[in-house]
């Protein structure tokens, strides 16, 4: 057995050139083949790739889809996000747990099933959702959960759970998924029919500098959330010295409640790949990497086939569209379950086969990124915009949107509304208009931009969705009158605590403290000054954290304190006897009482 393991793990390492830089692929393949990356496998991998045991362990322990402990043949990962909770997460979890006879985090004795919960898997508009191995299942109920387990016991093949395929390419044989696009109000820009090759041909008919100028003229800003001007980023990379340069597409769509990139990858992957190719031409890169989040692995065979088709059509590979001297190809890098890898430097670190710790900046990736070379990282949607700009021209692109926020934006809408799904809207649209579009009947609060964004109420509904007013990477969750907003805030804080990389003090420790204080507020064990404490602590985490994750992690608390302060105030009160409400005298002396055998009630 163990010799067999060593031989098979060595073979996997060889498949990836025994390159420590491909550690993600190697460990993922070992995990898939053996249900874990065991101590012995770690040693084999370390020896084969010339990495240290500590390097390999560090990588394996960082990602939630990798494990040193043996997992079942079928791993059920139930998505634990706010929209899932609103749609019956707990009932579904209980049903899975009961039917399997195990608690979340456990594996059945026969080694067949593992039950876990996981962060948002990009199916908030069809919640509750789960991944069964790589296969997404949607609209779960306690009944369907039990039925899934019974059926799996018969054939143990998650792919056969798909009885009815979703719309569009979800029914493509290479995807074969029950996921639905729920693409609504689409068509203005990104979702129009695509002429294969048109944009790349147009780009290559002008100079790289002219391509960058076109992107600048279109005032394209990054769609991932930060809104950095794309043309400027490209120009930095173009002007940075370096033989090799890289284009990375960030398809690690991890912000809870975001799923628009899933729809783009399913229906408009050609536009994404064309955007990458154009970027490669503009900055002088020959290599592209699509970093695909682990949760979207079911799309990989389809995407690989699309890449192969583009190679056959001369749109990728040597001399793209016959242009001597412009070679460009794309490989897919799978993630392994870590929200922080959506941060561009963490994403690059992950592509290099390590922990997804963000880097110190400067230097910026455009100067020193993947393998130390100038690298641009752009969001899926940004790259689709690039293709569109080349197809139709900068002026047409700017017909939509506002002066500072040109073009359209895809929104992923979930929660209490009649028509959840993906919407393409022009920047500048008011939140109220968006709520009407999706059929939000009694919205009390909206989480704009996911947990990293803001929780806003009625008084903000006339604000505009754009970079300078209410910015969003696309996530939008609607909450009706029956929702406990502070429970939602606490769920978001759980998310940040679990997803922090742990590199810097304020994010690693501060978020735990923020969550603890919030939890005390919710339990009635807090005083009014605890609210000031939440604000000052949140401010420290925001100001001193090293990357965007930490800088935005206090937002759920800070924005709800600002916009829904009464909810907090209703729960706190001055302690009657001057003793902290959180202080429980009986509990504090319990251990001492047990040791001494004295009853504190009769002490003295």
């Amino acid at each position, binding site marked *: 057995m163990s010799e067999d393991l060593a031989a098979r793990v060595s073979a996997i390492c060889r498949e990836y050139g025994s390159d420590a830089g491909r550690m993600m692929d190697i460990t993922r393949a070992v995990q898939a083949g053996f249900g874990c990356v065991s101590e012995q496998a770690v040693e084999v991998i370390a020896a084969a790739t010339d990495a240290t045991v500590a*390097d390999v362990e560090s990588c394996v322990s960082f990602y939630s889809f990798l494990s040193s402990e043996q997992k079942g043949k079928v791993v059920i990962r139930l998505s634990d996000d706010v929209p899932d909770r609103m749609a019956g997460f707990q009932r579904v979890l209980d049903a899975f747990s009961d039917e399997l006879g195990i608690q979340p985090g456990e594996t059945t004795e026969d080694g067949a099933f593992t039950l876990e919960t996981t962060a948002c898997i990009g199916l908030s508009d069809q919640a509750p959702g789960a991944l069964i191995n790589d296969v997404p299942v949607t609209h779960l109920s306690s009944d369907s959960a039990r039925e899934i387990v019974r059926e799996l016991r018969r054939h143990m093949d998650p792919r056969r759970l798909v009885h009815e395929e979703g719309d569009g390419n979800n029914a493509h044989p290479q995807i074969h998924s029950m996921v639905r696009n729920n693409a609504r109000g689409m068509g203005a820009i990104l979702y129009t029919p695509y002429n294969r090759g048109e944009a790349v041909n147009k780009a290559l008919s002008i100079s790289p500098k002219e391509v960058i100028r076109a992107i600048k003229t279109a005032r394209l800003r990054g769609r991932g959330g930060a809104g950095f001007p794309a043309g400027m980023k490209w120009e930095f990379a173009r002007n940075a010295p370096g033989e090799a340069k890289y284009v990375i597409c960030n398809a690690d769509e991890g912000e809870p409640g975001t799923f628009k990139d899933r729809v783009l990858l399913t229906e408009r992957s050609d536009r994404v790949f064309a955007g990458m190719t154009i970027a490669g031409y503009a900055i002088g890169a020959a290599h592209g990497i699509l970093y695909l989040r682990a949760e979207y692995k079911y799309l990989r065979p389809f995407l690989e086939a699309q890449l192969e088709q583009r190679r056959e059509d001369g749109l990728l590979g040597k001399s793209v569209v016959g242009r001597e001297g412009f070679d460009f190809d794309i490989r897919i890098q799978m993630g392994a379950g870590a929200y922080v890898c959506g941060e561009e430097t963490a994403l690059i670190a992950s592509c290099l086969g390590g922990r997804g710790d963000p880097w110190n900046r400067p230097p910026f990736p455009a100067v020193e990124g993947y393998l130390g070379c100038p690298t641009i990282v752009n969001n899926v949607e940004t790259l689709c915009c690039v293709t569109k700009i080349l197809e139709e021209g900068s002026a047409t692109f700017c017909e939509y949107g506002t002066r500072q926020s040109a073009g359209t934006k895809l929104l992923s809408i979930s929660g209490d509304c009649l028509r959840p799904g993906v919407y393409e809207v022009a920047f500048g649209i008011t939140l109220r208009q968006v709520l009407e579009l999706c059929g939000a009947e009694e919205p009390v609060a909206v989480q704009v931009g996911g947990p990293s964004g803001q929780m806003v109420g009625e008084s903000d509904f006339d604000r505009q969705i754009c970079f300078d007013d209410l910015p969003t990477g696309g996530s939008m969750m609607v909450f009706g009158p029956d929702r406990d907003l502070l429970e939602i805030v606490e769920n978001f804080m759980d998310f940040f*605590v679990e997803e922090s990389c742990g590199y810097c003090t304020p994010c690693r420790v501060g978020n735990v403290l923020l969550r603890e204080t919030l939890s005390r507020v919710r339990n009635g064990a807090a005083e009014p000054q605890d609210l000031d404490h939440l604000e000052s602590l949140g401010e420290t985490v925001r100001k001193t954290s*090293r990357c965007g994750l930490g800088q935005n992690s206090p937002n759920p608390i800070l924005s709800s304190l600002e916009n829904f302060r009464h909810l907090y105030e209703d729960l706190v009160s001055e302690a009657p006897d001057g003793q902290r409400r959180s202080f429980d005298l009986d509990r504090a002396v319990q251990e001492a009482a047990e040791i001494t055998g004295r009853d504190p009630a009769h002490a003295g």
Partner: protein
Amino acid sequence: MSDEFTVYIDGVEIAARPGQTVIEAADEAGVYIPRLCHLPGLPPHGSCRMCTVIANGRSASACYQPVSPGMVVENDTDDMLEHRKALIEMLFVEGNHFCMVCEKSGHCELQALAYRFGVTAPRFPYHWFPREVDSSHPEVIVDRNRCILCARCVRASRDLDGKQVFHFKHRGPHKKLSVNATARLKDTDIDVTDAALDVCPVGALMRKRRAYDVPIGERLYDHEPIGSDIEHRASSAPDPVEPAEVGS
């Protein structure tokens, strides 16, 4: 030097050179910016965030933020003091620190920072996470109760000793110092003469049986606050200058 330029730290004019970080320029000028993970001779790490300053209006880590001509740095302000106190308190409640019985007391940079900044007791609740102690090695002990994840030992082992004895495992609040062996420290190639053993700012990584070589009362921070050595470099403190006046 001809390519020197001026940087303003809390209104005080200091000289800096291209390629320097804010903390390097400040150190040379005798201006103390508190730090824990940073140690001259090791590449900057930027994890403790103690050296966070406002540089030209934006939060930045002084240990890796390069200086630029005319840069305006806010360091010793009420705002930054509050943030730094909070960071110190965070590290105290995250680990299990008992100064009164810790051999490092008096040499400990975390303790010294707490004294310097007036942190007497943390406002936050302790985590009380159980943490592993590894005393398997005959000469060296790792006490993770006191580890602040600053990576000084990780960097020193790699860059000064040419080994890779230390690394990190897991993420978020579960993150911990790991050793390069599937078992324990005794199975690594650490040596008692390694530079990695000289750099720990707290009592997490120590040579055995040397704890009281320097008696209490004669230790590094027993008489002067941490940072005094740097502040002594400033021969005479110049008067604060308004940057706007100088720049115009």
